[in-house]
């Protein structure tokens, strides 16, 4: 039998040959894949980051619970230049508030992250303490429904781990979370 003879004569040569073929194939495939992808790959200048599109956000409240971090990297941002500086703020007070004071029963924020400062009659300036904010979006909902929509949820970039696939984006009801270049992002409401 030819096969039998072959083995006896040089038991390594066929394996050697197969291995060479394998190497060539593997090397070739690396080159091919690398080549194809190198044309597609974009340089680091256009790195992408997870961002929330505030116009699509429905404040469903999943940002608070779905982030991989113990406290979500999504925080409430405030666009002062859009804000109406209202006394009766839909993001600061509960919907059917009676007394406009800082008592717990009147306030919207569960962690007390929104503070306000009197500016002049009748205007108040609102500030978010991002260390306290848990990204629940209650105030955003209030502001979007009753006010100018100056409060909005956005991913805080120094907290975000920039996961390969953002866990919140997977459950975002409106597909508002996408990976976009930071420079071209839609993210901040008050600068075009």
């Amino acid at each position: 039998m030819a096969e039998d003879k072959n083995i006896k004569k040089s038991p390594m040569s066929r394996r050697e040959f197969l291995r060479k073929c394998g190497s060539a194939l593997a090397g070739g495939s690396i080159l091919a894949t690398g080549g194809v992808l190198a044309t597609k790959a974009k340089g680091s200048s256009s790195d992408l980051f997870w961002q929330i599109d505030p116009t699509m956000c429905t404040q469903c409240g999943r940002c608070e619970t779905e982030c991989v971090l113990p406290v979500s990297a999504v925080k409430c941002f405030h666009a002062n230049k859009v804000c109406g500086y209202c006394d009766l703020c839909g993001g600061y007070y509960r919907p059917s508030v009676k007394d406009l004071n800082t008592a717990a029963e009147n306030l919207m924020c569960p962690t007390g992250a929104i503070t306000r400062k009197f500016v002049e009659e009748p205007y108040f300036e609102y500030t978010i303490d991002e260390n306290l904010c848990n990204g629940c979006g209650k105030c955003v909902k209030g502001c979007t429904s009753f006010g100018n929509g100056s409060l909005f949820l956005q991913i805080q970039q120094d907290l975000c781990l920039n996961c390969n696939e953002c866990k919140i984006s997977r459950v975002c009801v409106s597909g508002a979370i996408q990976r976009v270049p930071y420079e071209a992002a839609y993210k901040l409401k008050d600068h075009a």
Partner: protein
Amino acid sequence: MKKILVFLTLVLSQLQAWAEARFPKPDFTSGYQYPDIQHPVPYEQFWNGLDVVLLVAMMSVVAWATHKKQSRKAIFGVSVFSVLYFGFYRNGCVCSLGSVQNVVLALTDHTYHLPLYVLLIFLLPVIFTFLFGRVFCAGVCPLGALQELVNVKNFRINKAVTSALSIIPWIYLAFAMLYAATRSQFIICRLDPFIGIFRLGGDIGLITFGVILLLISVFVGRPFCQFLCPYGALLSVFGSVSVKKMEVTHKGCIDCKLCHHCCPVDALRPPYANQVKEDRLKGVKRLLMYFIMLPLLTLAGALFVGSNSQALSRAHKDVHLYDLIQLQEANPDMDPILEVTAFNEMGRTMEELEAQVQEVQQKFRIYGYLAGALIGFVLGFKLIRLSVKRTRKTYEIDHAACVACGKCFDYCPQNLKKNQ
């Protein structure tokens, strides 16, 4: 903080008229100025560059340690550094394992944006493996390194069981590629058992899974690498045909069995005299049968996964949304589903969604066939490999399985002689 923050000052002059403004912009008379709010902007380029440089440097160190120096010390050092830096400091994202999905997505979807460093993170370990064996697995990969560091003693598992289990990474890989190509989800990232440990928090189920794997890896070498890792499966192919092969010692084996005894992944094949216990013709027939089986298995796998692609496509967001809408319509009394509410609010139409769903299902069908074919092919190929008889005179490294951890170097008496 762990990221260098560059602060962006908002340009005060540019003010976008917000379409829904219910209340006019206040006219301040007290000279009030808008506060200068600063948001940190990301500065990832430096870190991504550093990751790639460190990746190359660490793999070079391991290659040097395995091929030239034949010592475990450097590899161990690399492992510790990798766990601390890639694992706990950089929080392991994006890692080479996950980058497979980005690459597959870039290959199948031309609209996908593949950053250069992700390509490098995917390709560099493959190239190094092709050149020097699985030096990436040795200790550069934080997942492998973590398991390696907690490993104290090795109990050997039945070889027949391990080789049967070695099909799992390929199934995992096939499904990961299927889900990535259809843009459904990145299951390798989602099911990464160690990411929660590196981040010191996360999904409790996955952390528990990771801890169990680590407890197992105290007594069994690298369970994740051996029986789950999809990237490891890919690298094992390149490892088995690598240009430069690793050796336990350059000085000649004395058949002391120590390397075989210490290997955590059972990658050392003992000397074996090819004593055929069965009729030779029978063996040849079996081999031939498996060669015929190979295309049949490939086809069967393709048909099996392809025909079930409809069910698999539910992992896609749009298909899921479509199902939810159907569910809501069938049960109008149930509490409104958030997704459906958002769908209606955004004014998306059912026709548009149906078209999208059909497109996704079409993709699932195509890539389902491919993924099934891959699984069937790997199964057939493995069966062929298991039907071939080999004769070995000394202990040899199985380069597909060897993760280049370098334990055997420290055990080999020949090496010790040289190093003294």
